């Protein structure tokens, strides 16, 4: 037997949307995590309910992992399309698990493989002198040293039904996802008990389903163990002692959990991928446990008629003092632009969670991009202050969510929390979230108004002009504190004015708050520098994982790189970024968009130009290898100024 690679591999499961790819991947991820391993998983899917190809990539390791890699070591399939789509990415020594009943399927018989993909697959197979069936695709892989593991799923299901003395079970083809997963676990010698526990956990809401799946899984596991005993498969997974403080976190829940802790009690949304999960998680858990009060808390989640209503309602709620948010993606945020300005001029603390996806327009509705930065820092007509904070991963997104509510309250302005599809649809092991880590800062709220706070007419001076541009806020319903809001320019009381002098004073007051914010926000929330070296990468958002992992690989080869993750996009931390880039000879801008929007923003705000740009806009997140290879080319001196990355199915 060749030397076995233990606990370091890339596992992929694919199948038609609606066939349980997600459940199987969740079981796999949880089983690995419960086995003391680190995982990073990401989900790819079409804008479709049922039938199109979806797949889940999970990277497993002994050490923390933050990104996916291009290659596949174990491809787990139960349909022909998964094999057609991914056979070329399976590494020599890797495995394909497949259903014996579909091997004769022709490429042309899979309607969901679109013409462009079909042409690419056809080209590969024909170049190798092969035909166009799934068998040919398997042969193609085999010639490159991929091991093939054929599993007769239908026959196994029948056997299972017989064994259980329940013929109706043979129709439960829905369980094929878990059966395929079990076969893959068997060839990697993963502990079957840990697997069974993970299955039980994922199906914990349906006891009967859980039991059935555990038994079916065991049946396939034992079959595969026996049948493939002498296969000498090169990749294995061995459980390790677990770290009790480790969790397996979903990107679609981390920010919502942060909202609960932050005290967000009102959230609005209009359904949109990939943002809806945030609101749905809040609604599903609308009753909240509280420490030591004997009471329960609750979140009111309102599904609105559109995103204009979503932000308008959130602002209305914020005026009453409730911490309020809305969650959306690019198309929805476009509709919110006018109300954003209203919140700006009226100094209303409201939070917008922006889960970016590929645009423009509907774009690639279920795919990833960081294409909204330019828009977000500039959205809305006229000029008004806003804070924009971008999270780089799931763990950050939890803590950042608490921070954005603090920033909104403290500086009395709209705060846009930038997230993206790659974060929302990924899963990772990380340290347990600490809900007590960040204190609640509600800024300057006045609950009882004194006469000195009132103007000549006895009304509260909500927008009082003073040395401090942040005026103490009162909420609707406060006794003796009547004020007005208007989208027009306003007086200190909040009445309409067109006075030129007051206009300047009010503009100055609002915009000055950005300077205060920039002085007060801690450096770690502005930008974070990792590593050192005279080549510096600047980037933002979810590219963080692939960059950090690539840096580790480069470092192992003696190549040192510095990475500056910019987090605060508005107000832009120019001085900090400049100081971080001091002494760097080469600046490399890495972004998931066409133009390099952070690069432009940096140049605009600091005057610093990047030397190289690495961009990607095919809708698929950057992989570790892509970042690694692109940096190697730059270090080697043969890189063009702009490299466009293109990996991903």
């Amino acid at each position, binding site marked *: 037997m060749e030397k076995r690679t233990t606990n370091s591999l890339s596992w992929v499961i694919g199948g038609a949307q609606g066939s349980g790819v997600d459940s199987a991947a969740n079981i796999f991820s949880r089983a690995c995590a419960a086995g003391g391993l680190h995982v990073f998983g990401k989900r790819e899917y079409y804008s479709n309910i049922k039938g199109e190809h979806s797949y889940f990539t999970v990277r497993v390791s002994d050490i923390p992992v933050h990104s996916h890699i291009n290659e596949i070591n174990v491809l787990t399939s139960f349909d022909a399309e998964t094999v057609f789509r991914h056979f070329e990415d399976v590494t020599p020594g890797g495995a394909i698990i497949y259903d014996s009943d579909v091997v004769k399927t022709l490429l042309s018989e899979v309607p969901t493989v679109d013409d462009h993909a079909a042409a690419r697959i056809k080209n590969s197979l024909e170049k190798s002198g092969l035909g166009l069936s799934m068998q040919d695709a398997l042969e193609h892989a085999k010639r490159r040293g991929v091991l093939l593991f054929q599993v007769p799923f239908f026959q196994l299901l029948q056997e299972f039904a017989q064994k259980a003395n329940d013929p109706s079970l043979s129709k439960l083809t829905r369980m094929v996802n878990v059966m395929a997963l079990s076969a893959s676990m068997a060839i990697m010698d993963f502990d079957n008990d840990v697997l069974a526990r993970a299955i039980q*956990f994922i199906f914990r809401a349906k006891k009967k389903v859980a039991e059935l799946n555990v038994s079916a899984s065991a049946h396939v596991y034992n079959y595969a163990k026996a049948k493939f005993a002498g296969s000498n498969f090169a990749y294995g997974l061995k459980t390790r002692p677990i770290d009790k403080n480790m969790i397996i976190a979903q990107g679609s829940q981390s920010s919502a959990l942060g909202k609960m802790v932050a005290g967000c009690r009102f959230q609005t949304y209009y359904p949109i991928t990939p943002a809806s999960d945030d609101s749905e998680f809040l609604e599903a858990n609308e009753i909240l446990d509280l420490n030591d009060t004997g009471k329960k808390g609750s979140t009111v989640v309102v599904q609105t008629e559109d995103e204009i209503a979503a932000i308008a*309602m959130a602002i209305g*709620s914020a005026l009453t003092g409730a911490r309020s948010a809305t969650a959306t993606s690019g198309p929805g945020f476009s509709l919110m632009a006018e109300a954003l300005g209203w919140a700006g001029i009226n100094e209303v603390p409201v939070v917008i969670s922006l889960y970016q996806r590929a645009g423009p327009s509907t774009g690639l509705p279920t795919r990833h991009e960081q294409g909204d930065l330019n828009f977000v820092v500039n959205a809305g007509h006229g000029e008004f202050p806003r804070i924009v904070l971008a999270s780089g991963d799931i763990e950050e997104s939890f803590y950042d969510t608490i921070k954005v509510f603090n920033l909104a309250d403290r500086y009395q302005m709209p705060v846009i929390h930038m997230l993206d599809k790659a974060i929302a649809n990924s899963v990772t092991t990380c340290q347990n979230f600490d*809900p007590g880590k960040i204190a609640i800062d509600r800024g300057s709220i006045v609950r009882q108004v004194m006469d000195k706070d009132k103007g000549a*007419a006895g009304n509260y001076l909500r927008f009082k002009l003073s040395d401090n541009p942040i005026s103490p806020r009162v909420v*609707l*319903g406060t006794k003796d504190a009547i004020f*007005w809001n208007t989208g*027009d320019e306003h007086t200190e009381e909040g009445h309409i004015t067109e006075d030129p002098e007051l206009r300047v004073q009010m503009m100055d007051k609002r915009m000055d708050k950005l300077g205060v914010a920039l002085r007060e926000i801690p450096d770690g929330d502005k930008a974070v520098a990792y590593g050192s070296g005279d080549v510096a990468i600047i980037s933002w958002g979810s590219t963080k994982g692939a960059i950090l992992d690539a840096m580790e690989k480069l470092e192992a080869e003696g190549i040192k790189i510095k990475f500056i993750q910019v987090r605060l996009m508005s107000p832009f931390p120019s001085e900090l970024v400049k100081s971080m880039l001091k002494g760097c000879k080469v600046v490399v801008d890495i972004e998931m968009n066409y133009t390099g929007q952070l690069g432009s923003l940096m140049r605009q705000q600091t005057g610093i130009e990047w030397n190289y740009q690495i961009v990607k806009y095919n809708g698929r997140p950057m992989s570790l290898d892509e970042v690694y290879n692109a940096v190697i080319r730059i270090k080697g001196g043969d890189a063009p100024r702009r490299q466009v990355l293109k990996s991903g199915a």
Partner: protein
Amino acid sequence: MALKLSDYKTDVHNDWCPGCGDFGILNAIQMALADMQVPPYKATIFSGIGCSGKTPHFIRTYGIHTLHGRVLPFAQGAKLANPDLEMIAVGGDGDGLGIGAGHFVSAGRRNVDLVYIIFNNAVYGLTKGQAAPTLKLGMKTKSLPQPNVNNSVNPIALALVAGFTFLARGYSYDVRHLKDLINKAVAHKGLAFIDVLQPCPTYNDINTKEWFQGLDKVDPETHKAMPRMYKLEETGYDGVVHNPDEINQKMAQVIEKSNEWGDRIPIGIFYQNEHVPTYQERITARIPDYMENSPAAQQIADKNDKPITNIGRLLSDLQVDK
């Protein structure tokens, strides 16, 4: 000490045109607030954009002058976050039935307990007299380059089918009648809509005060003007749904009555149905202490500013040793 009408007035200069119908609505709102003795800090007037949008600045309660067409979402958000406060939303017919029509319909589906008053003058006044959604087809008010090419929307009927549970129409020059309607709308449990016919003396030269009051239609015998408006309550009309079996019949009569226009224009209460649960009641069915512990009322941190929300139950699901 009882609150007086003057307690609801501000010193802001009112720049509506002389003779504007908006004055009557403003007075009626202030009179209603005084009648109900609502403490000014307990009430918030929300408005959209346009001449009517300035209304909150003239009323001494909290006043939130929002965006064009978006007054209902703003008001609903505030009311749902703090159901203790009295919310009145106001706006023009272009604001509510043109740019804001989607929100109008969706608000009906929710039945949030608040009052929405439309200042209906059939024109966009502040932008100098363009045709608004309630202007009849073929009408050419004085600043239109061509006769109105769109048909008009029937606000009462639209509100009815959208799900509003209180429907009334007032006339801005019958301030006492309108004030009574506002009182009843505020007392109503659910979303109330008042369509107020409000002559724009500057841009609507067809549906003028004189036209509404019938000065062009003098009784040949008495030589008195014959007003076009008549009061539903004086005809024995009863719009209240006393029991749910009557809904279809009551809805049908609203459609019929709200289509009357021209020489006979009904004002008064068209419909009232308190058998539909309010949005607040629907939330309470899921969150039992919502009314006492609303989003605005909730404590979120302890005295040391530490968050008090305990997500331990949810985090334990994520723990790898589960």
